[in-house]
């Protein structure tokens, strides 16, 4: 049956079939999808079982960030212990590439799953994830299993 118009009728048949399949809409604010494990959204700091931050203020993430949006202000005490004055994170400029998480040698940060990040004020996009807290003591164990190429900085050319 190849007469002129058969394609049009066939198209009508297909749209009707799709209509009968029913809508696929997820009514967003009322229902939400589960994010996959690796989904990358706003940066979050990890804590240990006591609720203390794991960040040692080693600055690896600050150096790794391509957009220079992580700013860790540290004062180093006389006993070379570090004190984090402010762990600045500029959400408005973050592109959630995850390079900071890959760079972290202590597995102290992660990309969170909170995607409702709209804010009413631009100023609210400036996060201070830590204010005025002593940095964690770096435990010189094997680097945590980051999802990336996780060899230590090698001495290639």
């Amino acid at each position, binding site marked *: 049956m190849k007469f002129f118009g058969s394609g*049009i009728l066939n*198209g*009508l048949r*297909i*749209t*009707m079939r*799709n*209509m009968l*399949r*029913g*809508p*696929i*809409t997820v*009514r967003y604010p009322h229902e939400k999808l589960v994010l996959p494990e690796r989904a990358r959204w706003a940066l979050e700091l990890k804590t240990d079982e006591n609720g203390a931050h794991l960040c040692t203020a080693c600055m690896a993430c600050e150096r790794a960030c391509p957009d220079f949006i992580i700013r860790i202000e540290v004062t180093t005490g006389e006993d070379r212990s570090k004190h984090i004055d402010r762990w600045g994170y500029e959400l408005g400029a973050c592109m959630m590439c995850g390079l900071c998480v890959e760079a972290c040698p202590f597995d102290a940060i992660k990309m969170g799953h909170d995607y409702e990040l709209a804010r009413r004020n631009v100023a609210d996009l400036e996060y201070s994830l830590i204010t005025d807290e002593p940095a964690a003591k770096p435990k010189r164990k094997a680097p945590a299993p980051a999802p990336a190429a996780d060899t230590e900085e090698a001495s290639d050319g």
Partner: protein
Amino acid sequence: MSPLLIVVLRVLAAVGLLLLNGVVLIYMLRKVLGRLHLRLGPTELGPAGMFQTMADVVKLLTKEDATPGSVDRVLYFLAPAIVFVPSLAAYAAIPFSNKIVAADLDMGLLFTFAILSLMPLGIFAAGWASYNKWSLLGSMRSIAQQVSYEVPLLLAALPPVMIAGSMNLGDIVRAQHGSVWFIIPCLPAFVFFLIAGLIESNQTPFDLSEAESELVAGFATEYSSMKFGLLFLSEFSNVFIFAALMVTLFLGGWSLPFVDPGLLAGIGAPIIFLVKTYLVIFVFMWIRGTLPRVRIDQLLAIGWKFLLPATLLWIVITGVAIKTGQGLFGGGS
């Protein structure tokens, strides 16, 4: 109450109902297109989003009415009215039941077409006055398309008129009571009328005058607020009129086959009529959700090279059939 006041109130009630009809149609379009496209359509406001279009009308009414600087002011303000008034006036001759018809005209069909052919004037005025190139292109297309399709549209409506022997829309329906719906003897004419009707009412795949992927919004580009609302409502009103004409001419109007018309008197007939009309409108929307748009030269070629000869040929065939086989169609005179 003075008789004048009653008349005024009646007219206002009719206009209000017609506006409500337009609003319902817009809601239906959203829902039907949504479902066709695997979406839900409006859901939030009221049960199943029913009040969404009402809210949109309120929004349109309260929006700032921006008038671009270099428009032709008189025409710019007049155009939506010129478009809107015929689309309301055309309801007059359409019989919702044996009794419910605003103006029971002997030339009802002709009146409807005559009124509707005022619309391109308004659309052209809208496009011309807007001082916008997209609007101008859209209104030019609109003129070309509506002028080309007035003739095939009328010709496609003639076979039922020939069989029924009357131009009164009520008589045409009554002629279908006694025999079969005219879609059966006049199937080609029905298809031609469908195509021409889609074109005349600017529906996809022939919505060239506002082709959004080409002309942004066509003749309505520069309109905002309720002026846009009027243009938009009149489009839906047109769709309703063409669907109603189709039901009247080909699908038996308010009647049902094998049902005694006496049973349907009163409230039954208008409901049947509306249901039928809305089913036809659903088909229009179904087509709209499926087909791509034709190009303007192709559109005109369809009209002049195919539709016009085909409708003429079908009129000849109908005429010959009526004359040779008097009584072949029950309503033949």
